[in-house]
């Protein structure tokens, strides 16, 4: 069971800020594939991965990163702080 978090327009497209996902995906990209195949709103949110960033356990990482041992995965657009 992994906590999956969504921020900014990813949160808006998917319609919720976080959910628990039962998955055996090996990598972030595999998890994205699973989510995409669920419902149209996920497919829409994950349509263009180049417009997305991902963090595992609150550290920025890449889509090919392994999910092994991850407790929390977050998807969001490029940051715009400052």
């Amino acid at each position, binding site marked *: 069971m992994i906590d999956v*978090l969504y*921020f900014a327009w990813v*949160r808006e497209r998917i319609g919720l800020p976080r959910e628990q996902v039962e998955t055996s995906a090996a990598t972030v990209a595999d998890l994205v594939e699973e989510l995409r195949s669920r419902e149209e709103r996920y497919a829409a949110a994950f349509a263009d991965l180049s417009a997305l960033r991902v963090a595992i356990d609150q550290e920025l990482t890449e889509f090919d990163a392994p999910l092994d041992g991850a407790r929390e995965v977050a998807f*969001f657009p*490029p940051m*715009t*702080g400052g």
Partner: protein
Amino acid sequence: MAVQVQKEAFDVGAEVNCFTAGCKDAGAVVSFTGIVRNNADGTLQRMQIEHYPGMTEKALAGIEAQARDRWPLQDVLIIHRHGDLAPGEVIMMVATASKHRMAAFEAAEFLMDYLKSRAPFWKQEFTAQGSDWVAAKDVDEDALKRW
């Protein structure tokens, strides 16, 4: 050292004075203040800043640690607000203190460049027509390459 992530407004001048008072042997204190700008049409009603509680504090502390590794800094301050802000309001500030001005300036620029593109904040602008998420700028991503 201090990283503060908060909804509340803060007094930049008081923070600069307090920071400076703690760094009497520094020689050089640089501060940067970010302010909510109106849009080109002047129709911005408010800005909302979303963040990722937990990761935000870690990311800012990590950026501070990197700056301290690269420059001899006596102190660093980062304050960033989230939630609703009106045009003209202060969004955030950083301050750096060092013996020499170049280290203080470079470290402040480094903190700002990393904070812009690597700390999990997202800006949303509201006008009478609705809301838009602010898009990240290539120029901000490119700015990281100089460090």
